[in-house]
């Protein structure tokens, strides 16, 4: 997380969160409207199950609600929000896979996570729910095929809107590592679209 306090303009996420801590529920509604889709899709792409994604999504936002009084703008709101989401995801996988710890950064367990996502009982496939456009299906299928660490970097970057350094700080990797993961992910998605054309 960034150490320097973030100055917040009136419309920024940070000022909305502070306003919510001050009692403005409208500020929370604005904040939620901005990020509800991003957090939900981030969780949906990782879990591949709508019900699980909704459950985790609800938990994430309830944590935000509970933390309103203690929150201070030490970092961007989105960085904090996606840290909560990511931790919730890791906890979810850890619970599902017993005591074995599964990390999104752990390249060694990527195949195990991949297998769990692709063949995990009720979870038929992570990204095959409501994609109607063929290019979209291709993209989803391509993202499904890449290792979780790269997928996570891509989703944090695109769905969360996090900058490279924020993704790096959140995932505990170096900026160069994150850059490399993103290049790989974009390359796979680009190939998927080129095959379509």
């Amino acid at each position: 997380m960034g150490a320097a306090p973030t100055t917040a303009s009136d419309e920024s996420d940070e000022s909305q969160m502070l306003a919510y801590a001050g009692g403005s529920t409208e500020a929370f509604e604005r904040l939620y409207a901005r990020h509800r889709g991003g957090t939900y899709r981030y969780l949906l792409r990782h879990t591949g199950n709508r019900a699980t994604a909704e459950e985790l999504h609800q938990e994430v936002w309830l944590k935000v609600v509970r933390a309103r009084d203690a929150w201070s703008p030490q970092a961007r709101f989105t960085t904090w929000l996606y840290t909560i989401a990511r931790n919730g995801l890791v906890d979810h996988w850890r619970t599902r896979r017993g005591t074995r710890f599964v990390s999104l950064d752990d390249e060694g367990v990527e195949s195990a996570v991949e297998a769990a996502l692709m063949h995990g009982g009720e979870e038929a496939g992570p990204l095959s729910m409501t994609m109607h456009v063929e290019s979209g299906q291709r993209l989803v299928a391509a993202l499904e095929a890449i290792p979780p660490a790269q997928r996570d970097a891509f989703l944090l970057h695109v769905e969360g809107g996090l900058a490279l350094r924020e993704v790096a700080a959140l995932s505990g990797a170096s900026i160069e590592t994150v850059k490399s993961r993103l290049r790989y992910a974009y390359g796979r998605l680009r190939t998927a679209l080129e095959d379509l054309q």
Partner: protein
Amino acid sequence: MKTWRPEEGDDFDTAIDAAWRKASREEPRPHVDAAILAAARTRRPWFATWQPLAAAAAVAGLAFLLVQLLPRERELEQPIRMESQQPAAVPAEQPGVSAKATMQGSTEPAAIAPRVRENQVRKLDQPVPDSALALPQEAVEAGESLSDAAPGPRQLSKEPRASGELAAGAPAPAAAAERAAARAESSSLAAPTAQMPPAQWAKLIETLYAAGDRTVAAAQLRAFRTEHPDADRYLPEALQEWASAVE
């Protein structure tokens, strides 16, 4: 995203980003949104805000009470220690005996002796000469001759030291045993003073009383009465009331 400003190197492929955003449009169902927004609208009750402060105040209050109670416990311990140490003071004041104790390396009675004198002056408000504390040489010798039956002054000078050592590091249950031993010692103190002149004996009792060692003083008074039926007559006015209570 409104708050996101791409940094250098952040733009990998805008076409892929656009295609992804076009394809990925799922959103949580309304009932999920409703549950989250309902939770967000629920304000915490006022007491929930003050609960941590109230808990902290309660803990602080309990800690303060405990701190207030602790010195009282120490005060209770002190008289017990004093009681177990005081028999050591009496033989220390006896000439010959204290010299022997010093020769044997016993320093505790000598250290306690000045305190005994201070107490005597403070409590009776009249100076008592050191000679009043002295036992006649023949009494000391008589005490030594009785050492088989009862512990003599030399033995007594050793035993309180041992009990003093116990008091320093012994656990609380040992204190009761020490007190019983001190009582037994005090009753045996009467033997060497049997041949003492009545006035000197009375002075010794007065000194013991002034030093706060009532048990030994009472034992001496009983022995004094046995030897001299009119013993109470020799006691000063200040001790008359206390003496009447000693059976």
